[in-house]
């Protein structure tokens, strides 16, 4: 028997005990035993997004680790000291030899002249007897490198990239002229251990001995040859400390060498930077997939809350607080999210291995597929935060589900906003997501732009949905019943408008952005350039032959525009006596300080330049050496007028004052330089010339092939770079990158399709009810179908139009602000994408309805 009841202390002021995690987990797990019904799209969306991020970051890690592990092989030693124009002096060589075994290579561009068969640009690599010091040079046929390169009967040996054999229609054993040296191509190159460190070349590789290079006559004062001395620390003493000592001593003992130093830990900095940059782009695309999928998460959680309404009320009736109800079900939702994330992680972690297997023989990258726990953890964090961001608000509404729902049907939908603490959790999770995106971004500026754009698009899409609903509500009552019903369906409680506009709008925006970028990029590379771009660049024109070369071009291409300027290579050593390494450069301008740059001198300002500030020097200027700099360096490097710039040219440090800054139109592809010096700066210094020829006619008198053949005979030292070939090389790379971006974007678009299909499937039950009632009341199938088509098409067209516009704006932003190329406002691709999206929406929507409509209403009504 109960004793008389007294007001309990707990009743008058019960302690708010937070629900224990153990209990929440137990109850959540209990609820999940029945299966994951209704969570299909939720899991798929998270798995897809997490997979994209995990795969991209794991693959990137594999590549970076490969680069790190293979640093010695890529570099050809523990450290490499590069000099432009000249070989190391005996003193410099002796310094290096004190630290380890030294080998040298020389690289330059040249022409391989195959006589009647033509001439082709080649990337020469002249090696010494110890090449390769690290790694293995694979050739076909496989023979010792020294044998393949040896001098036999006055003919040097060469190992050529198979592309060169194809380009000049040669076979092993054939001979080409390199400068004035005869080189027999004795083997084709299968794999070159230090290929990546050299960067992207415009011609096929040709390896020969340094004796052959010296015999070729290509080594003239000022020729664009890069000498690299590689130091291999003694076995057993090749520690990081020994390496650091070598690098430190190099700076101290040879301060004026002007060499560019790389170590095994930093073997291919440009390549590494490009990997990181590209990884960020792909990660952002993966994050887009995750955010699009977030809409699917929110839809699924909303449906979950609706379906569980009575269970929530029951829990509250038997003593659970609203907070407990939410905590239990948030735990449940996060457990499901964990499952989706685990699938994504497993697929993402496996992707690099699959990629490594597929690309093993195709891409010569030091790619070592690896399980990357840190990267996978970041991908999981992205997934968890996304799930939380999109789940907490709809779940928060469960807090206030009235227990009275157990006694009577709800009279009107509950429009209350979730309590403040759920909104606080949402904001915290959102801040976490933004924070993770920023913290792990390679370029925070781009990450920030992306976040702002994504937030803006989400907000805008919500506004579009609200606007559309308001428009439908205010459209009055059209006479056509199908249209009337379509309009009513657009704004009725539980309408699909919000979810459809979000998923479709985002999908079309993404597709249309890609389409605009694609068309702009292709137009830039294939159509807009050749009209104003030169046909050829000619390098290494000896100063003594400059006049003869001009005459040669005038004969070969009469009437063509020829531009010729002096050309040297130099490295920035310091600005205002601050060493280049200590200058803080922006991401966009860091390259100017790294390695050597082409420099020239001129009395007049180069074409395609505009003075941004300062003054150009007088024609016969004789005073202190002056230099004109690319205006982007004002912000990028913090330079200002009057600064003292010291460059190392031909092994000498030369200082000049910055006299002016120029805005340079790089896209003209004409000759231009970041640094242009006043002529007196380099008076008497040996140099070569750089020339371009721009054809006025579409079909010049002599073909490009004939010109290259004639050139190889008349000027064996001069290298011709055909712009079309160079552009094709760039085009191929851009094509491959675009392919990777499209692949990752495909995932984002798949996520948007999933969300779309999920939203439509969820609406199907309500549609089924409507359709059956309408049929019972005498509506024909045609009427019902036309009403649904009108509704889906209306929402689809509005979303697609928004997506098109948003895509155009985003595409314009990426093209003009990030890629710095012209935006081509050709909407064809975007319109095709948008139309396809509308058709897919209507089709998805009608698939379920068509099945329903073919049956008698009674069978369905019994089950409703």
């Amino acid at each position, binding site marked *: 028997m*109960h004793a*008389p009841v007294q007001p309990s202390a707990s009743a008058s002021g019960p302690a708010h005990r937070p629900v224990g995690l153990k209990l929440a987990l137990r109850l959540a797990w*209990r609820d999940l035993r029945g299966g994951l019904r209704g969570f299909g799209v939720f899991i798929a969306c998270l798995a897809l997004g997490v997979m994209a991020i995990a795969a991209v970051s794991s693959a990137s890690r594999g590549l970076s680790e490969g680069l790190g592990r293979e640093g010695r092989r890529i570099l050809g030693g523990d450290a490499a000291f590069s000099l432009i124009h000249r070989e190391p002096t005996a003193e410099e060589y002796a310094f290096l030899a004190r630290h380890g075994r030294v080998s040298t290579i020389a690289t330059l561009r040249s022409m391989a002249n195959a006589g009647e068969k033509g001439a082709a640009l080649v990337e020469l690599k002249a090696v010494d007897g110890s090449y390769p010091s690290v790694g293995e040079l694979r050739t076909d046929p496989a023979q010792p490198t020294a044998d393949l390169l040896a001098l036999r009967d006055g003919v040097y040996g060469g190992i050529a990239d198979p592309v060169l054999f194809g380009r000049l229609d040669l076979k092993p054993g054939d001979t080409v002229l390199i400068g004035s040296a005869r080189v027999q191509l004795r083997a084709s190159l299968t794999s070159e251990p230090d290929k990546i460190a050299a960067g992207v070349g415009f011609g096929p590789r040709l390896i020969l001995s340094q004796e052959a290079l010296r015999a070729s006559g290509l080594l003239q004062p000022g020729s664009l040859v890069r000498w690299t001395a590689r130091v291999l620390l003694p076995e057993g003493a090749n520690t990081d400390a020994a390496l650091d000592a070598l690098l430190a001593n190099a700076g101290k003992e040879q301060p004026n060498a002007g060499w560019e130093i790389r170590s095994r830990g930093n073997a291919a900095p440009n390549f590494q930077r490009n990997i990181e940059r590209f990884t960020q782009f792909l990660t952002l695309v993966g994050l887009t997939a995750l955010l699009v999928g977030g809409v699917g998460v929110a839809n699924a959680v909303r449906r979950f809350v609706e379906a569980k309404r009575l269970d929530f009320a029951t*829990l509250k*009736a038997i*003593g659970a*607080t609203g907070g407990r109800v939410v905590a239990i079900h948030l735990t449940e939702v996060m457990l499901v999210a964990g499952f989706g994330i685990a699938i994504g992680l497993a697929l993402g972690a496996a992707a690099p291995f699959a990629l490594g297997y597929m690309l093993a023989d195709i891409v010569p990258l030091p790619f070592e597929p690896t399980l990357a726990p840190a990267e996978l953890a970041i991908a999981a964090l992205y997934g968890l935060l996304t799930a939380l961001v999109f789940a907490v608000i709809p779940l928060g509404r469960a807090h206030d589900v009235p227990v009275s729902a157990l006694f009577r049907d709800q*009279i*009107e939908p509950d429009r209350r906003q979730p309590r403040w603490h759920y909104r606080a959790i949402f904001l915290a999770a959102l801040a976490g997501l933004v924070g993770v995106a920023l913290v792990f971004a390679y370029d925070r500026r781009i990450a920030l732009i992306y976040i702002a754009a994504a937030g803006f698009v989400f907000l805008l899409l919500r506004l579009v949905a609200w606007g559309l609903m308001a428009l439908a509500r205010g459209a009055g009552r059209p006479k056509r019943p199908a249209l009337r019903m379509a309009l009513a369906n657009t704004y009725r409680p539980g309408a699909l408008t919000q979810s459809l506009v979000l998923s479709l709008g985002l999908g079309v925006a993404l597709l249309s952005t890609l389409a605009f970028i694609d068309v702009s990029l292709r137009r830039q590379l294939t159509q807009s350039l050749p009209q104003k771009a030169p046909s050829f660049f000619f390098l290494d024109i000896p100063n003594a032959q400059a006049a003869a070369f001009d005459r040669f071009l005038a004969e070969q291409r009469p009437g063509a525009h020829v531009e010729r300027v002096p050309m040297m290579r130099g490295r920035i050593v310091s600005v205002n006596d601050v060493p280049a390494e200590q200058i803080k450069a922006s991401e966009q301008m860091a390259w100017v300080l790294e390695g050597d740059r082409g420099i020239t001198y001129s009395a007049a300002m180069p074409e395609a330049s505009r003075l941004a500030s300062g003054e150009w020097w007088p024609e016969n200027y004789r005073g202190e050496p002056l230099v004109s700099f690319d205006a982007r360096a004002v912000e990028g490097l913090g330079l200002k007028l009057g600064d003292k710039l010291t460059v190392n040219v031909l092994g000498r440090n030369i200082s000049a004052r910055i006299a002016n800054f120029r805005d340079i139109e790089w896209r003209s592809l004409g000759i231009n330089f970041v640094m242009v010096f006043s002529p007196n700066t380099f008076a008497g210094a040996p140099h070569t010339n750089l020339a371009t020829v721009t054809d006025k006619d579409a079909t010049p008198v002599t073909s490009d092939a004939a010109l290259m053949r004639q050139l190889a005979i008349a000027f064996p030292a001069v290298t011709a770079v055909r712009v079309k070939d160079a552009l094709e090389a760039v085009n191929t790379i851009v094509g491959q990158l675009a392919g990777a971006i499209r692949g990752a974007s495909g995932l984002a678009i798949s996520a948007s399709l999933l969300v779309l299909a999920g939203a439509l499937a969820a609406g199907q039950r309500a549609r089924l009810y409507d359709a059956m009632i309408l049929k019972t009341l005498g509506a024909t199938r045609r009427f019902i179908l036309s009403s649904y088509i009108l509704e889906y098409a209306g929402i689809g067209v509005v979303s697609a139009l928004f997506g098109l516009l948003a895509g155009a704006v985003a595409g314009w932003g990426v093209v003009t602000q990030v890629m710095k190329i012209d935006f081509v406002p050709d909407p064809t691709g975007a319109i095709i994408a948008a139309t396809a999206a509308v058709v897919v929406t209507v089709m998805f929507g009608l698939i379920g309805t068509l099945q329903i409509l073919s049956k008698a209403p009674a069978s369905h009504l019994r089950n409703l």
Partner: protein
Amino acid sequence: MAASEGTPAVIELSDVELSLGRGAARVHILKGVSLTIPQGQATGLVGPSGSGKSTLLMTMAGLERPDSGLVKVAGQDLGALGEDALALFRGRHIGIVFQSFHLVPTMTARENVALPLELAGADDAFERAAAELRNVGLAERMDHYPAQLSGGEQQRVAIARAVAPDPAILVADEPTGNLDESTGRSIVDLIFALRRERGATLVLVTHDLSLAATCDRTVRLRAGRIETEAGTEALAI
């Protein structure tokens, strides 16, 4: 009405007014209801549909807040409690049996009964739940899910769940409304047996006058007001 002499009141309602809905759809449901129920009494609430009996029950159980008036249960003014405090109060003092059972479909019978005990932090929730199920005759059906049980069995589970935390007050809203006559009779017998066994106060909403007649007292509502109150004999006449 005053509590029976010597028996303290466990439920006290004073001048309770309640309207539901918004704007034009707003309906005035409870119109100045005052009622006192002493501890241990079985009270039947009867009246035509829409008279406000279920709403009155919900108000007593703290599931609905009145617009005005006082609701005191177990000496606690429910108006002074926030939503969460009310939920905890319910968990400790009030067991509810619904017409539609409202079992959690993803949980077995035992888990459903253990749920309020788990929420209250009881370590022996499952042992006590098993004992309650044995008590209502479902020893063999403990690990069945609601969908695997008949309507009568589901209602037995719901009753076991309601009484498991040993509440002082048991409220039941049309507990036999979804059951056939013989099953309904056995459920009523079970509720009354448990109430007797534990000395709980019972408030029962029903359309069934014979069921109401088994209560100590009957309160008839009409249009949101208490129309008559009578002992069992009076109602039976």
